[in-house]
């Protein structure tokens, strides 16, 4: 092709062949970059599945799409509970989380972290801190729990802001001594806010009670499971039996 011809066949000095080649190259590069980024982001999500989010946080996936990682909630927290995740911390970089064992949530009545959130990744509709679901406390190690060993530790129960609601002590006969009671800390997942005060206060070297994110702590019955209302049906059957 002569120079004049190639000039004629071009826009802004780029001919069709160059244009197609550049576009193809750029698309490939962008594809690779996009794939890499997506891989990094989705791979590192499960690195810290135990990161506890601030009060009112949306479910993890929605939270990650909404959070702008500005740190306003962190700066609003009067107790330095919230931290912004750093690279290699596990939780997605720049997103807020807290480690209950270090500093638990103090459950402020005015919930300043939620008020500070500009993106709505912390649900602005949360107006009662007792309704927050940061996670759920789970007595994860009965073997080392002092109460399960027949002692009266009760620390987790006593520090709970919702004492006798979120954590109750359930009495049970101590089979070892045969004449003592065991006071077993028992969590009501419907009421537990996941503030982490129990985990923070647990006296053992490693906490035997831990706050887990809701999706890890909670099981889910299958939809076809007919035993979901066992209590009700049993009562019904009994009542029927009695009436006979």
């Amino acid at each position: 092709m002569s120079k004049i011809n190639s000039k004629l066949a071009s826009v802004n000095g780029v001919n069709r062949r160059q244009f197609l080649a550049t576009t193809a190259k750029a698309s490939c590069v962008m594809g690779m970059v996009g794939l890499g980024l997506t891989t990094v982001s989705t791979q590192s999500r499960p690195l810290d599945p135990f990161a506890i989010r601030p009060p009112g946080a949306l479910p993890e996936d929605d939270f990650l799409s909404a959070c702008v990682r500005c740190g306003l909630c962190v700066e609003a927290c009067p107790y330095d509970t919230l931290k912004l995740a750093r690279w290699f911390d596990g939780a997605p970089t720049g997103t807020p989380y807290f480690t209950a064992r270090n500093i638990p949530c103090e459950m402020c009545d005015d919930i300043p972290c939620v008020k500070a959130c500009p993106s709505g990744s912390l649900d602005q509709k949360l107006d009662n801190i007792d309704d927050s679901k940061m996670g759920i406390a789970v007595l994860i190690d009965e073997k080392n729990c002092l109460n399960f060993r027949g002692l009266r530790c009760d620390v987790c129960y006593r520090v709970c802001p919702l004492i006798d609601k979120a954590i109750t002590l359930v009495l049970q006969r101590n089979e070892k001594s045969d004449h003592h009671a065991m006071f077993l800390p028992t969590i009501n997942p419907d009421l537990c806010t996941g503030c982490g005060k129990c985990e923070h206060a647990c006296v053992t070297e490693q906490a035997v009670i831990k706050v887990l994110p809701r999706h890890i702590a909670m099981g889910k019955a299958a939809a076809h499971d007919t035993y979901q209302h066992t209590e009700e049906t049993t009562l019904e059957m009994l009542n029927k039996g009695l009436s006979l």
Partner: protein
Amino acid sequence: MNIKHSNSPKSATRFANAAVNELGWWGAHRFLILRRISQLSVLSLFAIGPFLGLWLLKGNLSTSLLLDTIPLSDPLVTLQVLMSGHWPEISLLLGAVIIVGIYALLGGRVFCSWVCPVNIVTDLASWIRRKLSLPRTSEIPKNLRYYMLGLVLILPILTGVTVWEWLNPVPVVYRAILFGAGSGLWVLAVIFLLDTFVVERAWCSHLCPTGALFSLIGKVSPIKIAAIRAEACNNCMDCFTVCPERQVLKPVLKKGSIQPFILDSDCTLCGRCIDVCAPRVFQYTNRFNSNNSNRIPLKVESKL
């Protein structure tokens, strides 16, 4: 082996020596110094909050709250959130609108040269390149940043997550300083090495999607740099050497150009061309300044 510009009489002398002699040291470094002061001031306004308890600005460059009332948000971050399918609180959207308004007025890439902390690192890399006379090893297309911008906005649609915020160096630097998240600074190290040893001005001028978006926003800006005395240009090439987007200078310095304004919105309005130019060719001005628009074509050109 060491090939210097054969047509430049001052190749052996220090860069922009003529400007220093003509305008004095301050005159030849004004906008560089002012920009550094500006960049560090913005950072300081954020930092005095967590460090000294003076909360003028809360948050970081992603989103912040000025004096506890005025929201300011990075438009790219806001767009990503929208693309991920989440409708944010009104304050985030308002913050983005305010920022877009400010930079539409001042010039989009004023952000890049006067606010963005990454600019300090890439300018350092560029300075080192010049000092060591490192050869250009490879070139990448300038418009790759628009592909990056597209990618950054498409990925949230595909993944439902603001993927780019894992890496975005602008908030990474701010978070590193304000929230002690220093481990993210590896991103800066990568950019520094890339800029110094691989491609000249690779990050800011070729790849950064934030810069690309601000460039688009700046298209309507009235504030421009103009070559008001293009006829005085002595082709010393100092402005080309120092300009991070040297392609924007060509149209105004080209012989016969009657257009004095640098209209290309890739111009970061850093003012370094004003600094290093001994014949005082360039000046900050606005697009409507009619004093500049009646420029006559150069004598050389009238023959053509």
